[in-house]
């Protein structure tokens, strides 16, 4: 803790690297996962090959995966970010396709029957209904990405993991503790933020049966 307080500049720089990697990886992962999940929802026969191979990928330990990636992308942040994208991909595609498959066909038929076009059905109905499930996926993927980024310090990617590994190498317990606390705090903060976003989603939420308080309508 004292290390954190005495080196705020170092800490901020490492935190910035950590967040940068995580943010970039998640942005790429979401960008890839949305069309992939839509494809799986449209063509159900793709379900087994795509979700299957992503599932297999998920069983490879992250350290091993990054070692595989080093010969391709070099000993740097790129290998780490690619690994993060791949892991996040598994989680996001799985959540999103479960969410899309769970859409009530009656509700979708009603949307069509009321005269919504493809675009309106997507933005007015599908997106808001799938959003809570998707955000839960983003939350999980974020935690996993933060964890992988920590290990990424071993691959010259920087980030908060650097505190941990430097500490281990030089027997500086204060650094190890500082690194562990910083990573845990980051993970908890992101989890809380995304949980809050999930709860902002419209609908009666988890209190489905209870008649909730009236909410103002825009």
């Amino acid at each position, binding site marked *: 803790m004292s290390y954190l307080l005495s080196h705020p500049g170092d800490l901020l720089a490492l935190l910035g690297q950590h967040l940068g990697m995580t943010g970039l990886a998640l942005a790429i992962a979401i960008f890839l996962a949305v069309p992939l999940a839509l494809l799986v929802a449209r063509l159900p026969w793709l379900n087994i090959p795509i979700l299957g191979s992503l599932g297999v990928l998920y069983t490879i330990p992250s350290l091993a995966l990054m070692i595989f990636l080093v010969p391709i992308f070099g000993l740097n942040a790129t290998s780490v970010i690619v690994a993060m994208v791949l892991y996040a991909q598994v989680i996001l595609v799985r959540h999103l396709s479960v969410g899309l498959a769970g859409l*009530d066909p*009656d*509700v979708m*038929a*009603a*949307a*069509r*029957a*009321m*005269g*919504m*076009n493809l675009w*309106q059905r997507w933005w*007015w*109905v599908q997106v*808001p*209904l799938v959003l809570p499930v998707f955000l839960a996926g983003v939350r999980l993927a974020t935690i996993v990405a933060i964890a992988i980024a920590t290990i990424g310090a071993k691959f010259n990617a920087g980030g908060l993991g650097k505190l941990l590994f430097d500490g281990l190498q030089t027997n500086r317990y204060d650094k190890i503790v500082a690194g562990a606390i910083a990573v845990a705090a980051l993970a908890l903060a992101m989890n809380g933020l995304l949980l809050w976003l999930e709860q902002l*989603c*419209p*609908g*009666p939420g988890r209190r*489905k*049966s*209870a*008649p*909730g308080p*009236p*909410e*103002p*309508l825009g």
Partner: protein
Amino acid sequence: MGDLQFEEVSLRFPSESRPAVHHVTGQIHSGEVVVILGPSGCGKTTLLKMVNRLYEPTSGQIFLDGVNIQKLKVTRLRQQIGYVIQQAGLFPHMTVAANIAVVPRLLGWPKPQIQARIDEMLDLVRLSPGEFRHRYPAQLSGGQQQRVGIARALAGNPTMLLMDEPFGAIDGITRTALQDEILRLQRQLKKTILFVSHDVEEALRLADRILVMRQGEVVQFDSPLTLLTQPADEFVYTLLGADDMVRQLGVLPVSAAMTAIPPEDHNGARPTLSPQDNLREALSLILRTGAPALTISQAGQPVGLLTLERIRKLAVGKGGTPP
């Protein structure tokens, strides 16, 4: 407005060997309530879904007010046809108000008009706007959801309503109340209603005419009374339960059996019905009260007398004979 015409309409699903709907021809007049009646799997839903083009016929044409619906923009067509289904199909992430506002929004109505329309529609289906506007569908009972479903279908002021077994999953008492509601709305709004049902009692209660289907084909398309008294074949006879006298009485108005009031009659304290009530209600009232006869009165004035003997004679005379 709301005149619908089927011309030799057929649909065969690619995966099926038999057509789900086969050469259906028929005309539904503006303001009419037509119930499509038939056993499960006979093609009722398929026929209905061709009207708002959720399905396209493999052959034949459908005309709405004389215009081939193929010529209309599909979203535009659907926005002027209300659609109500069994589980209401309400959007779970939208409040009751937002659900009702969907079609007006699609039609581009100005905001204040939409807000006023939401309250108007809730009043129409007898849900208090103050209490229900901001609720989500999951916070409503099945009957309330169905009322919102009807309000939503009517919000864009459509010329026609399509209803696919809307009360199929609803308990008996609520169901009867909702059927009454449909009849009331119909008298008030004069929409053309195409209503799918597999329940004979429901069909007899609601329909001006019943389109009886079997294995994709129309067997008979007539008024409830004609179906009961002149069934086209054995199938219609059994389906409608035309041998059921009580059921027959249900489609006959009191006026068909009442007699003039004898001049020296003093009316006494006889139970009273109106000429538009049906004979089944009359029979039930006679049996329940033990009165020998009923006074039939119109706008507070007695216009006739109805005895048990007259009801019995009429029932025997009309006897639905198997073809």
